[in-house]
């Protein structure tokens, strides 16, 4: 049986930095409960000795030469920042003043 309850949903919401209304918590608890009950069937599969499939064709680290690539659209990127001070991004205070 899946152990999805509203306490877990609230914890996951906090971890994911997503705020949920009470009604959303209830709805998500219900839907995730049934989804993870469905997912439990994976426990029936014999996975002894099976390696996890991370990349479908086994590709791994792909390297390039460590050379600098010129990037010329800095202003365009900065123009997307919601609040800024020059080239610095302005956000609410992170560290206590004292």
């Amino acid at each position, binding site marked *: 049986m899946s152990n*999805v309850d509203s306490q*877990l*949903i609230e914890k*996951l*919401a906090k*971890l*994911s*930095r*997503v*705020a*949920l209304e009470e009604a*959303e918590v209830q*709805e*998500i608890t219900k*839907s*995730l409960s*049934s*989804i*993870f009950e*469905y*997912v439990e*069937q*994976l*426990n029936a*599969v014999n*996975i002894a000795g*099976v*390696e*996890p*499939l*991370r*990349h*479908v*064709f086994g*590709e791994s*680290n*792909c390297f*390039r030469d460590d050379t600098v690539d010129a990037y010329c*659209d800095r202003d*365009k*990127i900065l123009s*997307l*920042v*919601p*609040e800024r001070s020059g080239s610095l*991004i302005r*956000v*609410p*205070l*992170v560290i206590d003043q004292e």
Partner: protein
Amino acid sequence: MSEVLDLTVAQLVQKLITREISAVEITESYLAQIESQMHLGCYLSVWHENALKAAKEADSAGAPSPEFPLRGIPLAIKDIFTTSYGTTTCGSQFLHEYESPFTATCVQRLLDAGGIVLGKTNLDEFAMGSSNENSSFFPVKNPWDVSRVPGGSSGGSAAAVAARTCPVALGTDTGGSIRQPAAFCGITGFKPTYGRVSRYGLVAFASSLDQAGPLGLTAEDCALVGRVISGVDPKDSTSVAREVTRWEQPLPESCKGLRIGIPKEYFLSGIDPEISLAVESAARVLEVLGAERVEISLPHTEYAIATYYVIAPAEASSNLARFDGVRYAKRAAGVESLEELYLRSRSEGFGSEVKRRILMGTYVLSSGYYDAYYLRAQKVRRLIQQDFLSAFENSCDLILCPTTPTVAFRHGENSASPLQMYLNDVFTIPTSLAGLPAVSLPCGMHSEGLPIGFQLIGRPWDEHRLLSVGQEFQQETTWHSGVPIGILSSSSSGESSKARVDA
């Protein structure tokens, strides 16, 4: 100019070469058709002014050529691809006015080939969905029956092609999001092998599964557009350096001696019997063309949906962490702490399916659950892939099966239970997990007046053979020529534009 609207890309290219028609005339026809089909909700933005400008430039530059195979050809782009012109919303309130500083590689390749972008198509938010009901803007309607969904998540692209508002469109497929809407809308949809097409600029949902691909009226058109966008890209380290041949030039007699695997697990209960019959007829056509049918078994099929709905949300939760309200797009107003900035921006920006999948992903990746869910699912994924690779090694060259268990369902029909919606992807998910190329082709009409599609799945990197068989099938059948009633009549819908227009 409704006679233009039912032409394929290949036919339009010919008419441009013989100067029977100009790029401007073609583009104007499609823009007018977009206007008259506005009620379907296919487009989130229309690049009216930009498209006409590009069409004029195409006419000055000359006819399509081997170097510019799509010169003068209009296309629509799923709004999950970044474009430096216009907006890129991913169907989400989080990005509803976002203007990307760069263009996705596969879109750039289409532009470099001379293609003309008509606009960005509607989709399920962040490509999460199977009905295009999860768009945060408005849903898309199936041109065959507006009370039905077009499928998803590339529902806008599929409906746009079926409604003849463009001859071809770009979509993405993570668990079936090109193939399923193609089947529901009576058109052809092609997903290349994972790694064929660069994902640079394809806003990531599940990085080990996402692939870009075309939706069009024919396998020939999908083959052409598919190979134009394919090829290694240094900006995407998961793209693979493999030769891309001219897929739109079919291999001769591709069906002769071809062994077609029919997976017995795909024909168990739960499929609409008319779909089974139509898929069976498609197999017969290929037999008449010289293929030989072989029954195969893909024993881990029943675990595919569960595997996908652990892995895909896990990757999504990680990929969507970048949407934090700090550097771009949505930032909630009036927040007092950084934590509140994250919480409120994300909660206000994301729809309910997106939130659900983020939480699912966070759960399966969290400490204490990672081994039980995520790691286990990755191992089952290997077994699912091995089923396919063994079948290809020992028994068959291509696999044939239905694309969907039902035809297009009604709006709201599957909204009660997310799990019920997920079960729609039963025939498309396994291929995605295995990274294989696949194409959905129209093969019949249901008695309810809705199209039926079947799927051909190929070996890794075997797109040329896959699309050759598709083209040969379409030379012998006419299902792909079907047009929804009323689509080519000249009357306007009278509905005002819901899409953002640039002129």
